[in-house]
C-alpha cells in the first residue's frame, strides 16, 4: 500500500507545479487569478463558522454529559459484531444528512482521538470521500421540481453505506489499526 501513501505526499506538490506551469504556458495572469480566486476561500471559511459553532456545541454537550458514552455502550456490541468501529457510526449516519453537521462530528472525533489515530484517519476519510445524499437530493431535485424521486433515495443511501464500509477497509489496509 506504499503507492497510496506516496500518492498522498506527491499529489499536492505535483498539482501545484502542473497548474502553475500550465497557467503560464496558456498566458494566464497567474498571480492575479490566484488572488481573485483566493478571496472566495475567505468567504467560505467565514460562512462555515455558524455551522461549526452550532454543531460542535451540540455534539460537545452530548459528549460532556456522558450521553454519548451511554449511546456507545449500546452501539458497541452491535458494531463490534460486524467489525465496525462504534465511534464513527454516528458520523456515518450524519454524513448522509448534512455535510456541515458531519464536518462538526469529524472535528470532534479528530479532537478527541487525535488526527493520526485509527479513528481520526477513518473519520477524515469518511468525511472526504462521500457527498451528502440528502443535500444533493433536496437541492438538485428541489431546484427543478422533481417530486417523485423513484429509486434515487434508496440508491443514494445504499451508496453511502457502501462508501462507509469501503473507507473502513481502506484505512485498515493502508494504516492498520
Amino acid at each position, binding site marked *: 500500500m506504499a*503507492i*497510496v501513501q*506516496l500518492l*498522498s505526499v506527491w*499529489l*499536492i506538490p505535483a*498539482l501545484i507545479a502542473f*497548474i502553475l506551469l*500550465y497557467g503560464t504556458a496558456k498566458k*494566464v495572469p497567474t498571480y492575479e*487569478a*490566484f488572488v*481573485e480566486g*483566493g*478571496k*472566495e*476561500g*475567505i468567504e467560505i*471559511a467565514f460562512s462555515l*463558522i455558524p455551522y461549526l459553532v452550532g454543531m*460542535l*456545541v*451540540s*455534539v*460537545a*454537550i452530548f459528549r460532556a*454529559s456522558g*450521553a454519548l458514552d451511554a449511546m456507545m455502550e449500546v452501539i458497541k456490541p452491535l458494531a463490534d459484531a460486524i467489525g465496525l468501529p462504534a465511534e464513527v457510526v454516528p458520523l456515518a449516519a450524519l454524513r448522509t*444528512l448534512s455535510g456541515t*453537521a458531519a*464536518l462538526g462530528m469529524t*472535528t470532534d472525533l*479528530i479532537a478527541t482521538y487525535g488526527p*493520526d489515530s485509527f479513528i*481520526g*484517519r477513518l473519520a*477524515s*476519510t*469518511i*468525511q*472526504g*470521500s*462521500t*457527498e451528502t445524499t*440528502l443535500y444533493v437530493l433536496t437541492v*438538485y431535485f428541489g431546484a*427543478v421540481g*422533481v417530486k417523485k424521486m423513484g*429509486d*434515487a433515495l*434508496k*440508491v*443514494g443511501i*445504499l*451508496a453511502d453505506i*457502501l*462508501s462507509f464500509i*469501503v*473507507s473502513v477497509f*481502506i484505512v485498515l489496509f493502508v494504516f492498520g489499526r
Partner: protein
Amino acid sequence: MVNLIWVMMAVIGIVFAAANGTMDEVNKAVFESAKEAVTISIGMVSILVFWLGLMAIAERAGLLDKAARLFMPLVRRLFPEVPPGHPALGYIVSNMVANMFGLGNAATPMGIKAMEQLKKLNGGRDEASRSMVTFLAMNTSGITLIPATVISIRMTYGSAAPSEIIGTTIVASTISTIGAVLIDRYYYWKRMRKGRKP
C-alpha cells in the same frame, strides 16, 4: 431532519447531565467547543484561500474544460438515454470535475443545470428519470481528489502528516462511486424486469 438531530443532541445531553450530575462539564463544553469551532474555521482560511486561488488559475487556463473532455466518453456511456452532444452531458461532466477538485460552490449550479436539462429530456415530468437517478448516485459518492477542509482540520489538531489521508480518500471515493453506479444499474434492471410483466 438535521434540525431534529441537532436539538436532540443538546437536549438529551442536558437532561442526561441533570440526571448524572455532569452539568459542570456541560457548561465548560459549551464555551470551549464554540471557541474551538471558530478556531477551526479561521484555520481553514489558509488552505481554502490557497486551494481556491490555485483552482482559479486552473479554470482560466482551461484545465477544467480539458478534464471535462477527458471524462466525456465515460459519462456518455453512463447516460445512454441522453443523446450525444446534448448540453446535459456537458453540465454533468463539469459538475463531476468541480466536485473532484473540491469546488463545491461551482459544482452545485452545474448540477442544477444538468438536472434542468435531464428534466427537459424527460418531457418535463416531475418524476425522476433513469438518468437523474444515475446522476444523483454518482453525485452522492463523488470522487474527491483533495479533501481540503479535512486536511486543514488535521493541521489544526497537530497531525504529523495532515495530507496522508488523500490516498485513502481517493481510493475510497473511487470504489464507492463505481459501487454507486452498479447499485443504480441493479435497480434499473429490477425496474425493467418488473415493467415487462403484465
